[in-house]
């Protein structure tokens, strides 16, 4: 999207144009001029700078202090150098959280949402419109209903004593959230987030030239061969986009906190939940800031890969 918009009229020769309307941009139909344009942009930039950019930069400093929520270090935080980072890197509960996050992102997003989303997009193409729209509606509902509501729906579903799942499976008394906390939030997140992959792959599949499907059908290719030779080569870009975006989002998800609160004993404490406990529950803000910075840097890596790919595809 770096390229000038396609609706821009072809610019006439620069010399001729600039003689008639000096110092005004080719497309500046309203005659804003650079000064007024800057004034229009300034309020948004100010707000973004204070509430988005400054906090990110501030973590660089905060992570080097022993700032605490209460007590003496809340009033006069001291500079402690790299202690927070060293503590984090040697803390088993941080390692635990990092590993759980990796499992969570890999199984719920990269595998779960991608595969289920693609299968749905692939299958629904050939379903009756009524069934297709019913299916799409429930998948979308799982995505748009507020997190604190769906969290309780899952608590009710998985409840030990009168949860619907136990009633259906005849496994009365199984405490899913205590015995299988990680599996539960992974399945939950697949349920919660598949809609995006489904939508993206639906539009990707619609962009595959129908003639190629026709050719595959004529030559007697089965489903697997069609997928391998026709579909995947055509939608490789979409697969990458989907994987990177849902990886980034899933990495930053906080909703599992509403279901398990990281427990029992930290067994479902993904990174966001861990930061919340360290910084805002236990009050170690400096330590939490160091962790925040680590998280922002990981986000930066994923997002830069994505943006690079995006630019390469739209030269």
């Amino acid at each position, binding site marked *: 999207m770096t390229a000038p918009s396609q609706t821009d009229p072809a610019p006439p020769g620069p010399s001729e144009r600039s003689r008639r309307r000096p110092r005004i941009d080719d497309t500046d*139909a309203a005659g804003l001029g650079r000064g007024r344009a800057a004034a229009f*942009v300034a309020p948004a930039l100010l707000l973004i700078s204070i509430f*988005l950019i400054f906090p990110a930069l501030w973590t660089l400093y905060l992570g080097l202090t022993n700032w605490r929520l209460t007590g003496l270090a809340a009033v006069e935080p001291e500079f402690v150098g790299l202690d927070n980072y060293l503590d984090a890197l040697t803390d088993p509960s941080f390692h635990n959280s990092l590993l759980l996050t990796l499992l969570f992102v890999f199984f719920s997003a990269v595998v779960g949402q991608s595969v289920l989303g693609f299968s749905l997009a692939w299958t629904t193409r050939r379903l009756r419109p009524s069934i297709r729209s019913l299916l799409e509606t429930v998948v979308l509902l799982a995505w*748009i209903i*507020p997190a604190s509501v769906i969290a309780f729906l899952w608590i009710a*579903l998985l409840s030990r004593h009168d949860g619907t*799942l136990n009633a259906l499976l005849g496994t009365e008394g199984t405490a899913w959230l205590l015995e299988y906390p990680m599996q539960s939030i992974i399945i939950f997140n697949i349920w919660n987030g598949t809609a995006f992959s489904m939508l993206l792959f639906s*539009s990707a599949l619609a962009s595959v030239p129908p003639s190629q499907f026709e050719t595959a059908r004529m030559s007697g290719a089965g489903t697997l061969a069609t997928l391998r030779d026709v579909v995947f080569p055509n939608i490789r870009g979409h697969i990458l986009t989907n994987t990177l975006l849902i990886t980034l989002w899933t990495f930053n998800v906080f909703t599992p906190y509403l279901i398990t609160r990281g427990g029992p004993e930290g067994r479902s404490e993904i990174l966001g939940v861990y930061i919340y406990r360290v910084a*805002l529950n236990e009050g170690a803000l400096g330590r939490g800031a160091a962790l925040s910075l680590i998280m922002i840097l990981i986000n930066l890596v994923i997002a830069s890969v994505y943006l690079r790919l995006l630019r390469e595809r739209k030269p």
Partner: protein
Amino acid sequence: MSVRQSLGVIGRYVFVAFVLAFFTLPLLWLASAPFDSAPSLTVAWPEFTLQNFRELVDNPYALRSLWNSVILAAGTVAIVLTLAALSSYALSRVRIPGRDTLLYTLLLLSSIVTGTAAMVPTFLLISELGLIDRQLGVVLVLAGGLLPTAIFILKDFMDSTPRSYEESARVYGASSLQILRQVVVPIARPGLATISVWAVVQVWGNFLVPFILLRSAEKRPAAVTMFTFYTEGGQPNLALISTFSLLFSIPVVAMYLFVNRRYGFRFHGGIKR
């Protein structure tokens, strides 16, 4: 139809049935429990009653928190829409040096400085500004996070609106702000509507930001109040939780249906989060 083909069809329908059950099962409770005279956690055909909705009126925080959500959503949308319209218009019409880099950098920043990753510095910043436990603090943080995406999408809309009207308005001596208000905004209405709905959905469901920035129960939005209903001690009041969940979910579902009918949801699917 060969055996292999019919197996394929059967396989497809088994898959569809299974997925449909998987996605529907958790949602059923939301449809049955609010109308059940003795709601339990198990999904059951309700013994129909509307009595549960009395709990909403009787609870001191329920309706109030929904109103708080409306305030947060309205405040955030007002800021995002105004500032995004102004800046995306200027960025679309005037080639400020480094414009594209700016847009990309902002988009990059908003996707990496998420509420979860930046909860510590955000909390400290709002504390230092004395905005803890003020709804204004929540609105500003949310608006700051939503603005880059809003500008990015709106600029695309602005790029595709014709410029000829602006030229004629200018000939008649309209000022830039007048042109923006009376010429550009009406043309860009679908884009503005999309951004509004998107921003409302974001704010309506947001849990983390108000959860860490607000203290008093009477200022909490519905997302946080809902959480306190099922975590703060004692037997959860299922009549209250179920009816509240329903009332809290209806606005976003209704907006989804509206957008879907009016503009088609598919296209904007990617911008939900």
